[in-house]
């Protein structure tokens, strides 16, 4: 669906990246200066790479071997910029309709305005909108131009936490309800794990790793790139049971059952959990007489290498990967080694789930257990 290969030199910075994705949300993840935006610009045609090939849905948009370079206005690649870039001299409605002449598809203004909840904003001017409102209008504007691919360059980076939480659900809805593939540029682990189906980790202009989000996030060797504080595993689960008496909810994943404080979700709801390494400890035996509710049996697969105090350990829990963080001294004292059967004790999870926004059912957050 999307194949990208770009080699481009800009002064001292060299971009040399290659990845493919089969749709959904492809996150380009990395620190600032890793080349994420250059790659996004190359896909949208804002940057003409010195060498490379970019194919969307089987059509080559850029191919330096044949000299092909479809100009940016004919690519139908919608671009959502960090700063929104709404036209200040036009109203919200005029901004939304800007691309209608070129879309070649019937305008779905009402539908998209409803999806993004921006109907009350239509007569207003961009300068009077909040940051979150601006980004929603920018998303609507890109969608109404009839794109076959959306590029989002850190769309939440200039927003505060509350505004981020306001926009993220809309992007998740977009992923689930429209079939438009999205290239999502970000340096935030939380955003990427919540949204991405495919994760491309960039470092100094090169692809350090690419693949399904859960498997890339679980790679201990990438932790210096994915950011140690937030690093952890991503697993899929479903709501299995509710316990009204104790206000607890049971989630079932391949790894086992997790009991968390009450989540207001129907039984069967699919939910994506992010379990940070710092929230997981390791026990050699099934814990008894402990306040911890969640102990998942698993096998040690990999022990990270470090000369510092802290190391990460990757466990295989019936197919789900879990990462635990502990001190090197503890790891040696417990004689942890690959193949050893242990228990992962989970203290906190972050979650989001994939229900319909329209039904007001979206929630994302974090619970400690």
């Amino acid at each position, binding site marked *: 669906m999307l194949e990208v290969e770009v080699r481009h030199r800009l002064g001292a910075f060299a971009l040399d990246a290659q990845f493919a994705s089969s749709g959904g949300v492809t996150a380009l993840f990395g620190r600032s200066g890793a080349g994420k935006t250059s790659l996004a610009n190359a896909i*949208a*045609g*804002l940057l003409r790479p010195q060498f490379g090939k970019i194919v969307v849905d089987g059509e080559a948009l850029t191919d330096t071997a044949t000299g092909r370079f479809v*100009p*940016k*206005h*004919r*690519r*139908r*690649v*919608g*671009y959502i*910029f960090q*700063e929104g*870039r*709404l*036209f*200040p*001299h036009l109203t919200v409605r005029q901004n939304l309709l*800007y*691309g209608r*002449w*070129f*879309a070649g598809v019937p305008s779905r203004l009402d539908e998209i305005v409803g999806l993004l909840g921006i109907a009350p904003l239509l007569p207003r*001017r*961009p*300068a*009077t909108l909040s940051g979150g409102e601006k980004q929603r209008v920018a998303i609507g*504007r*890109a969608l109404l*131009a009839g794109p076959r691919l959306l590029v989002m360059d850190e769309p939440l980076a200039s927003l505060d936490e509350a505004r981020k939480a306001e926009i993220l659900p809309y992007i998740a809805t977009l992923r689930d309800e429209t079939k438009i593939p999205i290239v999502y540029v970000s340096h935030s682990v939380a955003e990427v794990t919540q949204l991405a189906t495919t994760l491309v980790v960039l470092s100094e202009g090169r692809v350090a790793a690419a693949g399904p989000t859960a498997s890339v996030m679980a790679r201990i060797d990438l932790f210096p790139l994915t950011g140690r504080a937030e690093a952890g595993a991503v697993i899929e689960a479903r709501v299995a049971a509710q316990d009204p008496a104790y206000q607890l909810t049971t989630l079932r994943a391949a790894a086992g059952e997790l009991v968390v404080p009450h989540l207001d979700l129907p039984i069967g709801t699919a939910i994506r959990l992010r379990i940070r390494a710092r929230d997981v400890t390791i026990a050699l035996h099934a814990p008894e007489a402990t306040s911890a509710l969640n102990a998942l049996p698993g096998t040690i697969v990999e022990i990270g290498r470090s000369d510092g105090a802290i190391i990460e350990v990757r466990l295989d829990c019936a197919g789900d990967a879990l990462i635990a963080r502990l001190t090197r001294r503890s790891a040696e004292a417990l004689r942890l080694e690959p193949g050893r059967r242990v228990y992962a004790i989970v203290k906190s999870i972050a979650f989001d789930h994939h229900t319909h926004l329209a039904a007001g059912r979206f929630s994302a957050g974090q619970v400690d257990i």
Partner: protein
Amino acid sequence: MSALLAFSPDEITAIRLSLRVAFWAMLGSLPVGIAVALVLARTRFWGHSLLNALVHLPLVLPPVVTGYVLLLLFGRRGPLGRLLYESFGIVFAFRWTGAALACAVMGFPLLVRAIRLSLEAVDRGLEDAAATLGANAAWVFVTVTLPLTLPGIAAGMILSFARALGEFGATITFVSNIPGETQTLPTLTYALIQQPGGETGALRLTLVAIVISTAALLASEAALRRASRRVSGL
């Protein structure tokens, strides 16, 4: 007091001619001014500084010199004057159109400068955004760049108009001071001052010049404020 309002036919003609000349000078130079401002703001080429200097030349040259250069180029026997006459029947020398040309040239640096500054302030990112929505370069220019440049264009037009109303040296050198054809408000004022008994007429025209110029400046302020508000999106 009433003598101050008793305009002679010559004076009325000169005032109307001045307004007409200034109007056409402003309007005629506008497209060229936008094009040159665009070239200066957006491109870099070997003759860039030279073009910039050429545009600003009328600002620093003595107006008489500018007028004389126009006479050499656009006079009946000048290379451009002859070409225009033979191809299109257009004559500048000693006609009101020539006065308009002289005024346009004199006001051109002010026009270009105002538009160029405004163009340079336009966020190129907005143009990229428009392109990703499907707009080609010409459409981006018309729907995004031009509207955002409006404050500069308005300011440049007013400056060009005001400059044209006051133009004297280049006009009198290029097209002389022919009543009813090229005698504008400033050249008539000058002629009246030279005549015995012409002081009252000169004073009348002076007051008219002050009124028109003040009105133009106030109008430009208002236009600028409105355009800036529009562009800033409030």
